[in-house]
């Protein structure tokens, strides 16, 4: 059984400032965007200006003669071929079929012109250099003709030039003709013409119809709607939004003389980027080094090299120079992922005691041209599925000619939360009761069979406790009023709440996360891991855990993270990093300590079993002796003490490990708003967020994560929306001007309360706090006006429309 977390916590759970805070705030920290290698070239991507088109012709002659031109790659897969014959100007090649996939051999004959590129071992070669059976990659530029493009921004090719300006000149010198094809960018149009197909994928039209899911029988649900005290109906919706990472996607790629590749990537998955590039360029992963010392936000959209990253590395191998491609803001918003929309027609029934008796929802959402799996509406009715006796749900995926979706901070949950929690408050309004009563009444019950410290065993208790705390911090009792019945005046006060849940277990997968701790003879300590700091203060987490175990200060630990060479780690998604990395660091530090004791004890006539670490020293409990840390470590002589720690979901599930890391959290948020009933302008005044996350490693960083989640949720509620023009199919606001994001003046007071539950071990906190904010704000606006503003963002237009339909005067 693992030793686990120390019973007495010295640094764990306290407020520790980020160890890289000064480096980040002074500009000393180098992000991928900041990397400038000697002789580095700038890349740029040619993209479809149309939402759906076919390439009719391509002529790069002029582009290749443009000043500063250094290279051009077609963005397409580049399989390996075997040379069959290479003679004159003709190359004959055959494919290398994957036998497992039962692929057939393909042969191809290519006339080699200046726009045909042949690569062998990642170097451009001439036809004359080739031998039979050489493994080559062959790029035929004209292959791009006929390719179908599915959204504005769809990648066609990339170029490199000596400067950013020249790279853009090269792009503009490319002569390309398109055949425009029919397209759809509005979800309403997809639903009207479900058979019209303008997107790729297996679906017959642009729709993957949903399957109806039922809890209970149809008759039960009908009876609930018929026999309950009240029913409420509404159609609610949330828009497609973008991740808007402040540091855009991209990387700098540089090849070395030995055929190794180093990339400085803005990623939330160093190992995944390493593996992706190794696969692409047919080299062992150990020859790829992915460096992500600092990165400016990913939110689920940065798990792979992506087309721009592959293109930069490809341009770099061909040009023999480092190449940088970082997306510009328009590319970032239109091509680097989104959170799918969700629109649902809901019917909900309930009784005066607050019990919800039935729920039905028919909903749909669009991820863009691909990414249907991210239209995750299978959690409805959110939170209350176990509490509500009967419900049905059906959700349809509607594809549109827009950039594809990627996971975004709590994929699916914010949408599920809005579609459910709006209905809950509308029902409470119909019943004439405080929505707090409805929430308490329908919370999922504790599972009496489950372990008492587990989520299932105590979720009802935790939610109720969170509701107690949140309502107290927000002054719910004093401030809540029936919807639309607040103090008279032009500016209406409203208060609303919503509840969320999330997993936050250690990362799954076959390979555990690693951390390595090294104690040197001078007493210095290094902790190494390939994990990346997505902005969550992971670097500080590693330092805190190491310092806690070794009796040191946080500043004593040198943390090296964000380099793929430091062992295996998983991508930072699903709030899995801290619950995987903190235990891995715990074990690494404990193992390094044990190794230190083992090596030094004999030299001090001590038994390792009797040695313990206290702050700044090692104590021999039997012989009542003690040594200062440095003095003790000096006895290592020419040696060092190393410890490796490994952690994963599977390890956390082993008996006895439930106190080290676990999962499932709950959270309650309460928003207080002021709504100007004449202008429809909504201002959030105060948001209370109560959150549990098991054992709190760094209280300051936890609170910061929660506040960040609240800010993101507020933007979702009030400002953000990808607006696509139906005539051109282009996004009209791919910027930060009309894609609105709140500034300092738009931020409310944010009160964060962290529930510390050390007995549950570490649980991830990245995603949960952004889930319920938008629903809480929407409910607060309902409370202010007495009328539902059903669609986010709550713009003045939508608020005024709702008021015009019959709300507060």
């Amino acid at each position: 059984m693992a030793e686990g977390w120390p019973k007495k916590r010295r640094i764990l759970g306290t407020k520790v400032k980020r160890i890289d805070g000064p480096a980040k705030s002074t500009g000393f920290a180098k992000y991928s965007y900041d990397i400038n290698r000697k002789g580095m070239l700038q890349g740029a991507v040619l993209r479809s200006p149309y939402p759906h088109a076919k390439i009719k012709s391509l002529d790069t002659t002029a582009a290749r003669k443009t000043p500063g031109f250094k290279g051009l790659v077609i963005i397409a897969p580049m399989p390996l071929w075997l040379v069959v014959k290479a003679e004159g100007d003709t190359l004959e090649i055959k494919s290398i079929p994957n036998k497992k996939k039962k692929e057939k051999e393909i042969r191809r004959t290519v006339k080699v012109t200046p726009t045909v590129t042949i690569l062998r071992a990642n170097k451009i070669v001439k036809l004359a250099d080739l031998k039979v059976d050489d493994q080559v990659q062959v790029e035929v530029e004209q292959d791009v003709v006929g390719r179908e493009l599915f959204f504005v921004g769809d990648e066609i090719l990339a170029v490199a030039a000596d400067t950013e300006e020249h790279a853009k000149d090269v792009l503009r010198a490319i002569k390309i003709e398109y055949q425009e094809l029919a397209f759809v960018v509005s979800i309403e149009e997809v639903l009207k013409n479900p058979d019209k197909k303008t997107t790729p994928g297996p679906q017959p039209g642009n729709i993957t119809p949903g399957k109806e899911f039922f809890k209970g029988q149809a008759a039960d649900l009908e009876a609930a709607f018929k026999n309950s005290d009240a029913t409420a109906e509404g159609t609610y919706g949330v828009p497609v939004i973008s991740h808007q990472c402040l540091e855009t996607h991209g990387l700098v790629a540089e090849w070395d003389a030995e055929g190794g590749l180093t990339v400085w990537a803005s990623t939330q998955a160093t190992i995944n980027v390493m593996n992706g590039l190794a696969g692409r360029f047919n080299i062992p992963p150990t020859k790829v080094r992915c460096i992500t010392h600092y990165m400016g936000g990913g939110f689920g959209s940065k798990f792979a090299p992506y087309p721009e990253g592959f293109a930069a590395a490809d341009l770099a191998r061909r040009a023999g120079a480092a190449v940088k491609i970082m997306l510009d803001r328009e590319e970032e918003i239109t091509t680097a992922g989104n959170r799918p929309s969700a629109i649902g027609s809901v019917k909900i029934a309930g009784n005066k005691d607050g019990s919800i008796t039935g729920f039905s929802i028919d909903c749909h959402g669009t991820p863009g041209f691909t990414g249907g799996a991210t239209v995750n509406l299978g959690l409805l009715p959110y939170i209350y599925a176990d509490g509500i006796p009967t419900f049905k749900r059906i959700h349809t995926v509607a594809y549109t000619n827009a950039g594809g979706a990627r996971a975004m901070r709590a994929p699916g949950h914010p949408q599920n939360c809005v579609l459910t929690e709006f209905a809950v408050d509308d029902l409470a309004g119909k019943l004439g009761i405080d929505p707090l009563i409805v929430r308490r009444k329908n919370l999922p019950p504790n599972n009496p069979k489950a372990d008492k410290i587990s989520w299932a065993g105590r979720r009802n208790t935790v939610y109720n406790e969170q509701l107690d705390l949140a309502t107290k911090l927000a002054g719910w009792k004093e401030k809540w009023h029936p919807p639309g019945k607040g103090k008279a005046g032009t500016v209406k006060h409203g208060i609303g709440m919503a509840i969320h849940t999330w997993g936050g277990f250690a990362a799954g997968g076959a390979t555990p996360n690693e951390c390595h701790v090294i104690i040197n003879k001078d007493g210095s300590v290094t902790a190494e891991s390939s994990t990346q700091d997505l902005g969550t203060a992971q670097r500080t987490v590693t330092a805190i855990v190491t310092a806690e175990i070794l009796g040191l200060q946080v500043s004593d630990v040198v943390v090296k993270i964000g380099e793929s060479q430091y062992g295996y780690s998983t991508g930072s998604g699903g709030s899995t990093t801290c619950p995987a990395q903190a235990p891995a660091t715990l074990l690494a530090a404990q193992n390094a300590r044990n190794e230190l004791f083992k090596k030094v004890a004999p030299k001090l006539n001590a038994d390792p079993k009797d040695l313990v670490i206290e702050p700044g020293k090692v104590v021999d409990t039997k012989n009542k002796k003690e040594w200062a840390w440095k003095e003790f470590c000096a006895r290592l002589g020419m040696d060092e003490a190393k410890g490796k720690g490994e952690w994963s979901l599977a390890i956390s599930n082993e008996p006895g490990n439930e106190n080290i890391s676990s999962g499932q959290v709950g959270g309650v948020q309460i928003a207080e708003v002021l709504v100007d009933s004449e202008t429809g302008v909504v201002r959030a005044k105060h948001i209370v967020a109560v959150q549990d996350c098991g054992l709190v490693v760094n209280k300051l960083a936890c609170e910061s994560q929660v506040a960040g989640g609240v800010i993101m949720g507020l933007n979702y509620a009030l400002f953000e929306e990808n607006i696509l023009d139906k005539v051109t199919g282009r996004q009209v606001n791919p910027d930060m001007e009309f894609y609105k994001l709140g500034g300092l003046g738009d931020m409310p007071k944010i009160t964060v309360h962290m529930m510390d539950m050390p007995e549950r071990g570490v649980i991830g906190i990245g995603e949960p706090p952004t889930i319920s904010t938008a629903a809480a704000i929407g409910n607060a606006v309902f409370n202010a006006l007495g009328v539902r503003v059903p669609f986010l963002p709550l713009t003045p237009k939508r608020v005024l429309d709702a008021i015009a339909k019959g709300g507060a005067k």
Partner: protein
Amino acid sequence: MKNFTYHQPTTIAATLPLLDAEWGKTELLAGGTDLLDRQKDYVSQPEKVVSLTGIGGGFREMSSVSPPGVFPPIITIGAGVRLVDIAESKLLAQYPALVQAAGQIAGPQIRNMGTLGGSLCQRNRCWYFRDEHVNCLLKGGRKCFAQEGENQFHAIFTQGHPCVIVHPSTLAPVLIAFGASAEIAGPKGTRTTPVEKLYHAPVKETQREHTLAPNEVLVSVKFSGGGPQFAKFCNASYEVKQKETSDWPLVQAVVAFHFEKDSKIAKGVRVVLGHVAPTPLVSEAAAKSLEGKEVTEANAGLAGEAAVEGARPLSQNRYKVQLLKVAVKRAALLAAGVKPYWEG
């Protein structure tokens, strides 16, 4: 962006010969917060950029003179004066509308770079106009895409306007309400024109949102407010914004009038509207409605109703009609010093 030659003359006189008789090839650069974006986005591709940043003296200064019997004082602001200096000026105590409007423009970075002249002469923010790939009327195309497209932030006074942009300047409506005049240098010498006459609704590529000739330079603006002796000059600008920080107004209303000594009756009322038409829009109807009346909530509300007369909103911006009514009402009340009923 396309390569260009760069010039930085140190006087207006040296600037004029660098300019062309036609739009397109030469652009004037002041704070750069508009032009540089347009160049980088390939919306404007000048061959020559003439920077005004080397010009000193009155071009970059603000002055106040109080001739006997004139109140409030006569203010002259050089076109090169930065927005932040207007927002923080002590000379402008009698002109809260201008201070409010300048202080609400975008964020501190923009206000530290942007200038008065730039605010008055900037190009519109229509998202179709700003998209290189959309060939709209103002770029030589055949149609205005906003008419049938995404027009939630566009004009609501659209009659007679094939292009339905809104004029972006929030300082222009203030200066028009103040009856300000502009001093303009051109090849034939210097001319003075009311700021109101600086604007027209553009309909084609060869036009700008303003009426300056391509070879003219805006040098300064001058205003007083010009009430009779012992009158109190009342003025305010009210913007409805979705965001508090770094946002364009959805609508703006500027109301100016004067109270004669010991009177609470609005005289000489001027109402100018922003972000509702391709030009700053003088509302005679709203002014007439309030003229000679006490500025009560009811009367201010009537002025708001009058201001929206004749509005012809587009498919997605009917809400701006309501916003405009409210903005005029609130601006009038603020100008009169009435306690804002809309603040909690």
